[in-house]
């Protein structure tokens, strides 16, 4: 216990790393060719079942396992556990692109040595080698998220659609182009995983430089090489590492390590920063606010606006289109224009205060990463009541997945009974304070990178104000 305490402290406070792959059995597991197959297949069966349930089961959201498992259990696990602690750990076990990958490789487990993979194996167009498609995709899903999280059939259609799109795209484009450039979920997982407490890196970069054959990219007899178009030798950020461990299998020098580390380190890395990622930050920050207001706020009219396809009780007639356009304007306008504009003004003031030689655009892009911890924590705070209030629905649907009146495990009739619901606002406040802490820490360190020594604080103050105002806005949503 004492040891553990020291470990955690050294990780968080002293920039230290612990190589998890030095644990022998972990390494043995991840370099086994069947590893990814063994974690994905059960997950695939579960998601297949959830999709089926959405189509054949009850149209009532909280009585259908597709809704309770996807939008309560999976969502909470993803945003509150997987992303902050395991980076793209979800991508390791995600079943969505797996048909495409199996087809490309013409095999599920083994390394095949065919000259050409199945499919056209095209290069992803350079114009789209950024996460703008993911930004747009996520906003599009968010535009009808109220429908998505309440109607089993919509959830099934979207999940099924993602299976189809990923498979088709992977037959056209090489490797995991879908995951890296298209998947609407992948975008924010990548962004937030830069905050995560785990990272995959190389031990010795010089070794990688000298190493000519580079099996980690090209593959070897036992490995396919990185399917995410990354080169481990110069990887500084988690953003696009899918944690598939192909590089660990490939590296002949055993030069890859999986580090446990303190939170938020990658946000300070300037290489790889771009406007696409900056906008992803604003989208996530804005949508956290919109979601809290729409799904957990007292404003029923806002819910009406968002619930455009509602025709009571479970139909899809298009009603109130005018108001829905207002809702769309809020979602898209806030995240693409208003919040970025406010942040641009902040960046301009920072430049004015610090007399920095960097352009406003550089400061805008660079500092946007300081908002990642706050945005992530806002999302976690939003997700907490989902479990704390509605946990009984999850247990109910385990016994009666389709809402047909079964009672397989005897948990069908557990009544709806929130756990300490009165504490929720205070839990949300504490989570928000953690986000505030890491945002300020990141922001100040960024300021130390960007501004001259004697004006760091002056340059950072406008950023601090922005962070505090953003936090206070969330505090108002939660407690006000």
């Amino acid at each position: 216990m004492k040891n553990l305490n020291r470990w955690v402290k050294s990780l968080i406070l002293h920039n230290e790393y612990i190589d998890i792959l030095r644990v022998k059995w972990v390494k043995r597991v991840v370099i086994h060719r069947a590893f990814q197959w063994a974690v994905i297949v059960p997950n695939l069966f579960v998601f297949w079942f959830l999709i089926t349930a959405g189509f054949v089961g009850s149209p009532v959201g909280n009585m259908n396992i597709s809704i309770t498992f996807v939008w309560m259990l999976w969502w909470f696990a993803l945003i509150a556990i997987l992303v902050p602690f395991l980076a793209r750990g979800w991508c390791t076990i995600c079943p969505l692109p797996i048909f495409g990958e199996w087809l490309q490789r013409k095999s599920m487990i083994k390394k095949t040595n065919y000259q050409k993979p199945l499919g056209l194996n095209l290069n992803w167009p350079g114009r789209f080698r950024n996460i703008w498609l993911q930004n747009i995709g996520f906003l599009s899903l968010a535009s009808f998220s109220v429908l998505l999280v309440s109607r089993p059939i919509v959830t099934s259609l979207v999940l099924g659609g993602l299976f189809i799109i990923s498979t088709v795209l992977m037959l056209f484009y090489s490797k995991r182009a879908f995951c890296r450039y298209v998947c609407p979920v992948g975008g924010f997982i990548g962004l937030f995983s830069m905050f995560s407490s785990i990272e995959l890196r190389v031990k010795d970069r010089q070794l990688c430089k000298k190493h000519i054959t580079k099996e980690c990219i090209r593959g070897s007899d036992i490995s396919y090489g990185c399917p995410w178009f990354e080169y481990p030798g110069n990887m500084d950020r988690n953003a696009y590492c899918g944690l598939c461990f192909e590089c660990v299998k490939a590296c002949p020098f055993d030069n890859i390590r999986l580090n446990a580390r303190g939170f938020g380190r990658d946000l300070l890395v300037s290489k790889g920063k771009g406007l696409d990622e900056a906008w992803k930050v604003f989208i996530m920050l804005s949508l956290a606010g919109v979601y809290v207001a729409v799904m957990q706020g007292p404003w029923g009219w806002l819910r009406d606006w968002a619930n455009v396809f509602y025709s009571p009780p479970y139909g899809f007639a298009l009603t109130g289109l005018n108001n829905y356009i207002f809702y769309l304007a809020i979602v898209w306008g806030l995240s693409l224009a208003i919040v970025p504009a406010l942040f641009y003004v902040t960046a301009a003031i920072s430049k004015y205060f610090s007399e920095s030689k960097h352009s406003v655009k550089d400061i805008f892009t660079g500092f946007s990463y300081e908002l990642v911890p706050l945005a992530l924590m806002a999302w976690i705070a939003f997700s907490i009541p989902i479990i704390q209030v509605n946990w009984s629905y999850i247990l109910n649907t385990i016994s009666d997945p389709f809402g047909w009146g079964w009672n397989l495990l005897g948990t069908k009739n557990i009544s709806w009974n929130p756990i300490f619901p009165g504490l929720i606002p205070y839990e949300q406040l504490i989570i928000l304070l953690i986000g505030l802490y890491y945002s300020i820490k990141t922001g100040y360190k960024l300021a130390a990178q960007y501004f001259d020594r004697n004006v760091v604080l002056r340059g950072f103050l406008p950023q601090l104000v922005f962070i505090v105002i953003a936090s206070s806005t969330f505090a108002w949503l939660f407690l006000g």
Partner: protein
Amino acid sequence: MDREELILTVSVILVLILIPTAAIYIKYNGKTLPIGPWKEKQEGTVIVYAWTQEDGGWMPNEIIVKKGETVTFVIRSMDMAHGLIIPELNVDSGVVKPGSEKSIQVTFEKPGIYVFYCSVYCSPLHYKMTGKIIVVEG
């Protein structure tokens, strides 16, 4: 592709086919299985599933009973609160909460057609949520 891969691939595909097939089969043929959604309880008992009219209303919405028979109706609300009333016989189950069930016993003395209604306003088409009980001579 070698033997092992082939076996695994085929079994994965089989499971992927089996999951939706089984679910659809149970949904539409559940009456013959002990686990289907429309499972019958026992002789003299009729389970009446209540869905909002937009999703099918009463299931079944036509029930045939014999004259003089005492039938136990188990009313199960599948989505929202519903209630079963047969005004002619003064029968009222009261409100049945979503996900729960209530039983009422009714004896049919006279042959004829009795209409039953939903007593809880459950949707805009609530007034259409009706069914009939046909009482036939023994």
